[in-house]
């Protein structure tokens, strides 16, 4: 490493060195070179132990590396130097959240919100921490705060829906999830919440429909199990078997998937309905023009709640 030529003329030559080292650490971090980033950051901290930016970077490096306790220590050290650092409080709160220390995370978010009361990220994350602490009403208040500032925030709508679902207010939850999906039709979490709402209502047809939409974005073993159970509810044993098999492929130890598969195999001896091109099977709606001309409407009517 070569130092810039003007270093010698400065009263504090180490400042230039510090800048160069920090820049190198940041570049290495952005490249994904964790070791290199940590090495350069170590040098920066040796040059100036009370340099908050170096401690913040150290926190981010540790967090990316999965060393959450180390990240918490680093963010705490950064905050010791500069207690007003938004980045420091957010990093600390996120790391605490990650290791399940929700109460401390909430306190950290509160500190951050004192400094920056309009931080959308802090409100959302505080809501998530409160959700984990099962304080759903307070979590909803946080999401409402976000929606007051950003009514188009799909994440806040979805989280509010999830909290309302926990409080047992399914109709309000459905409205929130609907809003989230209106704003972002490919929002996996919102689709998954919609599936869960339909499961609570026992609407197998809608479960299958929305689970299939979720799979276009991401797969999850639990979702395959829910879908398999819905197929069983619709009398579609083969489709149910396929769903449970997929769940087992993703999570071979899942007892629920194994039980579901056994059940599907048993059911197959009695009934195995084939829906053909009708992806909406099980969602019959009287008076709908599409349902009126459907070839399997009699069967669909039977299994629609």
């Amino acid at each position, binding site marked *: 490493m070569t130092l810039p030529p003007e270093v010698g003329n400065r009263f504090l030559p180490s400042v230039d060195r510090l800048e160069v080292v920090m820049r190198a650490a940041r570049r290495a971090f952005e490249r994904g070179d964790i070791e290199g980033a940590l090495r350069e950051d170590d040098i920066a901290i040796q040059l100036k132990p009370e340099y908050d930016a170096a401690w913040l970077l150290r926190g981010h490096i540790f967090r990316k590396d999965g060393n959450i306790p180390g990240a918490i220590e680093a963010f705490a050290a950064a905050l010791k130097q500069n207690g007003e650092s938004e980045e420091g409080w957010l990093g600390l709160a996120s790391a605490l959240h990650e290791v399940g220390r929700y109460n401390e995370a909430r306190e950290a978010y509160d500190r951050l919100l004192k400094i920056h009361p309009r931080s959308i990220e802090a409100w959302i994350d505080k809501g998530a921490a409160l959700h984990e602490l099962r304080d759903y009403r307070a979590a909803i208040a946080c999401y409402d705060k976000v929606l007051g*500032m950003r009514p188009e925030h799909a994440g806040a709508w979805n989280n509010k829906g999830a909290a309302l679902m926990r409080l047992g207010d399914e109709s309000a939850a459905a409205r929130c999830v609907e809003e989230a999906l209106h704003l972002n039709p490919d929002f996996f979490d919102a689709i998954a919440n919609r599936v869960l709402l339909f499961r609570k209502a026992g609407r197998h047809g809608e479960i299958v429909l929305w689970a299939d939409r979720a799979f276009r974005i991401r797969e999850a073993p639990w979702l395959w199990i829910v879908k398999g159970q819905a197929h069983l509810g619709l009398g579609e044993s083969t489709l149910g078997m396929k769903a449970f098999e997929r769940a087992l492929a993703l999570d071979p130890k899942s007892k629920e998937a194994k039980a579901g598969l056994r059940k599907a195999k048993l059911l197959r001896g009695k009934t195995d309905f084939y829906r053909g*091109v*009708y*992806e909406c099977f099980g*969602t019959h*709606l009287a008076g709908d*023009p*599409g349902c009126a001309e*459907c*070839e399997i409407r009699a069967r669909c009517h039977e299994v629609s709640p």
Partner: protein
Amino acid sequence: MSLPSLAEVEHADWPSLQRICETLGLNPKGRSAVVRMRVTDFVRRRGHAPSWKPNREHQAALLTRLGSPDLAERVWESTIQLDAPAPWMGLGHAQLAGGFLGEAAKSFGHAAAMGDSSAELHRAEVLAARGDFDGAARACDTYLASHPRDLRGLLMKSSFLARAGFEEESTKVLHTAVDLHPEVPVLQRTLGLALLKAGHLAAAAEAFHEAARQDPKDLDAQAMRGAALLLAGRTREAIGLLREVLELDPSRADVLNNLGIAYLSSGRGRSAAVNLERAVKHLESPRILLNLGKIREAEGDRTEALQAYEQVLRIRAKDPDALAGRRRLSPSEKTRTTPTKPAKQTPKKPGKSTRARSRPSR
């Protein structure tokens, strides 16, 4: 093959939806909502993102709404042109939101000078916010010179004049508004309220009567007419009217209070106390409680009166009337050798109700 727009898909009827499916090679079978969702997904994935992007004016307006007036101000400043008043208006709003009232007034002034006459009304609001009600009324005058029939301008001017202390002038402006817009029923009530505040009780009663005639369901106008009649000394008429209002809405604490005062004025202390007790049940207001305390005191019911004063002090700890009442009635006073004759505290004015306190609607 051209894609239909999302709006077209959203509003397409069933045959059109099937046609679109055929054209796009999609499965046309199933419940209409599901088929529509299928087409929407296809269009969303294949179609281009909407071409609209917010320009600097949009960004600035959004920033003001989102609560960042300082940023909005900077963006508005960058959009200012020589011949367009709109950026000055936007800048004025951002400055107003940021609390820079002087700057905001100047910006609205610039917009007005560029030909946006409504800017004068905004300037009037800013001047009023600074406490310069005279200036605000003058700004309204400038606006009304070009829009003499504009109701908003007239009502704003009237309101600013009243706040500046020119109640007579304010009432005149309201009269003009009523003459120009006889079809707006709420104007009569606003006029009545202004007249009531200015002490023209008979005229106020007349205005409320007119408001109630235009809209027989307007209980507020009826109740205020009752109050005006009571203040004008037409107690019997007031009692009749207030009772009519209570038949339609027995839960109105303000009317119960005013009826109580009316009964007291006509020498029916017992009825007065009954109505005030009912009013307290609906609204525990210090004014009503004070009236009740005074009536009970006048009737010689010291314990009950003291209770009413104590209740007022629980709501408003330093209420001078309640403190005076408690001093008069507290047990230590009894030790005096020469009992002081209780001063006549007959409340002459009807208690202020929440309704009567509200500002005239525009």
